[in-house]
C-alpha cells in the first residue's frame, strides 16, 4: 500500500537526469509517458526504493499527474514502496521451484537472517521476500538480488549461506 505522506524531497543528480533524457528519446513525439517504467527502475537503482517524493519528481519530469505515477508504481511488483535492505533477496516461490525445494530455501533465509519476509536486518544489509515465477524454472531454486538483478541458480542451504557471507564481506 502506498502512503502518500510528507517525505524528504529528493533532487535527481544530473547523471540520473541524463539517463532520463536518453530513455525519453526512444519514444515518438508526445508519447514520453512510455518512459515511466524505465524511469522508475532508474530511480530505484539509485535510491534502492521509490519514495512518493521521487515519484512526484518523475511526474514533473514527464509532465504528467503524480497519480499516473502512483498507480503504475503500485501495480507493478518490482517497485519497492518502502526502503529495503542494501541487498534485497527475492526467492521464486512458484510451482516448479517448489518441486525442487524453494520453500526450504525461504525458511532457511528467515532463520539465517533472523528477520521475517519484508523486514530489513538491523545492519540494513538484507531483506528478502518470496516472489512469483522468475522464468528460470529449470535451474531452481533461484533467487535474484536487486538492484542489479543478478541471478543465483540451483540453490542449496549451503550456497545461500555462502552467498550471504560473500555479500557481508563485500560491504
Amino acid at each position, binding site marked *: 500500500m502506498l502512503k502518500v505522506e510528507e517525505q524528504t524531497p529528493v533532487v535527481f543528480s544530473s547523471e540520473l537526469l541524463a539517463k532520463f533524457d536518453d530513455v525519453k528519446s*526512444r519514444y*515518438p513525439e508526445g*508519447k514520453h*509517458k*512510455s*518512459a*515511466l*517504467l*524505465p524511469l*522508475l*527502475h532508474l530511480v530505484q537503482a539509485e535510491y534502492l526504493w521509490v519514495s512518493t517524493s521521487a515519484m512526484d519528481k518523475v511526474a514533473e519530469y*514527464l509532465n504528467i499527474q503524480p497519480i*499516473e505515477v502512483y*498507480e*503504475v508504481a503500485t*501495480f*507493478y*511488483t*518490482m*517497485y519497492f514502496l518502502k526502503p529495503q535492505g542494501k541487498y534485497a533477496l527475492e526467492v521464486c*516461490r*512458484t*510451482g*516448479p521451484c*517448489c*518441486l*525442487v525445494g524453494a520453500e526450504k530455501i525461504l525458511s532457511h533465509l528467515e532463520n539465517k537472517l533472523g528477520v521475517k519476509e519484508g523486514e530489513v536486518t538491523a545492519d540494513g544489509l538484507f531483506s528478502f521476500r518470496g*516472489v*512469483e*515465477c*522468475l*522464468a*528460470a*524454472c*529449470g*535451474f*531452481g531454486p533461484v533467487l*535474484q538480488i536487486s538492484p*542489479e*538483478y*543478478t*541471478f543465483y541458480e540451483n540453490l542449496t542451504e549451503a550456497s545461500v549461506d555462502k552467498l550471504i557471507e560473500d555479500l557481508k564481506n563485500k560491504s
Partner: protein
Amino acid sequence: MSRKLLLEHINVPGINTLEVYRQKGGYRAVEKALKTLTPEEIVEEVKKSGLRGRGGAGFPTGMKWSFLAKPEGVARYLVCNADESEPGTFKDRYLMTYIPHALIEGMIVSSFALGAKVSYIYVRGEMMPQIRILEKAIAEAKAAGWLGKNILGTGYDLELYVQPGGGAYICGEETALLESLEGKRGNPRIKPPFPAIAGLYGCPTVVNNVESIAAVVPIINDGGDEYAKIGIGRSTGTKLISASGNLVKPGVYEIELGLPVEEFIYSDEYCGGIANGKRLKATVAGGSSVPILPANLTLKYANGEPRLMSYESLSEGGFATGTMMGSGGFIAFDEDQCIVRNTWNFSRFYHHESCGQCSPCREGTGWMEKVLHKIEHGHGSMEDVDLLWDIQRKIEGNTICPLGDAAAWPVASAIRHFRDEFEWHIKEPVKSQSQNYGIANYATPIEKAPVTEEK
C-alpha cells in the same frame, strides 16, 4: 539427433558477440530479406512455413502479420513480447542470454516485412541481465550498420529499443503489454479493436513472442517450404521446450515437433528420465495454465496410442483426457509430489497476478486460493471440492483476457484427474499433513480400447 534451427550454435564460445554470430552465418537473413525480397514476399514465406505463435496461443504468425492494417501516413509497430512469466517457461530468457543476435536479426527481418521503422522488445523487468545483454548486442549491431539509417544501403531505417517491464505476469497478454509500454498499468484492453488495427499509440501493431521472431531467421534463410517439412501435420518446425521439475536433466531443449512425449522425458538426448530414480506421477506440458495430466495420459492417449509433442497431439482428447502445447513449459512431478499443494501454489500465483479488472478473475482467483489452502492444510470439507469446481466454471470464459481461463484450467484439471487425492486430504486431515498420497494409480497403463470388428 534432432535438427536444431535456433540453438544450433548455442555452445559456440562467443556466439553472444556479433563477430562470432556473423562467422556462423548470422545476419544472412537480413541481407537476403532487405536486398532480394519484398515485405510481401517475406510475409508469404512465413505463411508457407506454417509457423505458429510460440508464446502460448499457437496462432499462425504469417496470418497474424497479414491482418496488419496499412493506412497511409500512419506508423506501424512491431513489439516483441519478451515478458516471459508463465510458470514452467524459461526458453526466451535462455535464447536472449546466450544468442541475443538471433532475436535482433529476427526483429530486423520482421520489422522490414511489416514496415515498422521503430520496434520495441518488451522484456520483463526482472530480466535486467538480459536487458543489458540485448542493449549491448543492439549497440554492436547498430555500430556495424545492421540497424539505424539506410541499412545495407537499401534505404530502410530501423531503430530497435529494449523496454523493461515492472514485474507483472499479465503484461504477457499482448494488449496489457501495449498498455504497459505506453507507461500505464497492465490492464488488458477489450478486443476488438485488435492490435493489428489499433495497437501501440493507437497505431497498427504486431506483437510476437521472442521464439516466433527468432524462428523467422531460419525461415528466410532456408525458405518457408523447407521449414514446413520439419515437424508433423500443422505443427511445423522446431520448438523450444523448457523442462523443469523432477527431471534428471532439466533445461531448454529444441525439439522437432512430433517427438514422442515418452522419448522427451526418458531419452538421454533430452530430460534423461525422472530424478533420483523415482517414477513419474503427473506433468504440466505447456506452462502452468494448461491442464495437468496424470502420467498415463501424458504418455498415451486414452485409446493407448502414444502422445507426441505437437499442438494437435497434446490437445488430443480435449480437456477430458488431453492438455495443450501452450508455451512449451514442461513440468514433471515425481511420485512424492502433492497435487493439492501444487494446485494451491498455482492458484496463489494467479490470484497474485490477476490485474483486478474483471470481477470473476479478481474475486474468483482469491477464493480458489483460500479454499485450496484450506484443503491442503487439513481443514477442507467434501463440499469444498464441488465449490472449487463451481468457482472455476464461473471464471472460465467470463473475463476480458485469458488470465481467467489460465487460472481456472489448472484447478479444473487437477480435480478432474486427481479428485481421489483431494478427497484423501479431506478424509485424512492429520495424515495428509505429514504424508503424501503418492503415485496411486496415476501411472497405471491405460488399457487399450477393445477393437470392435466391423460388421
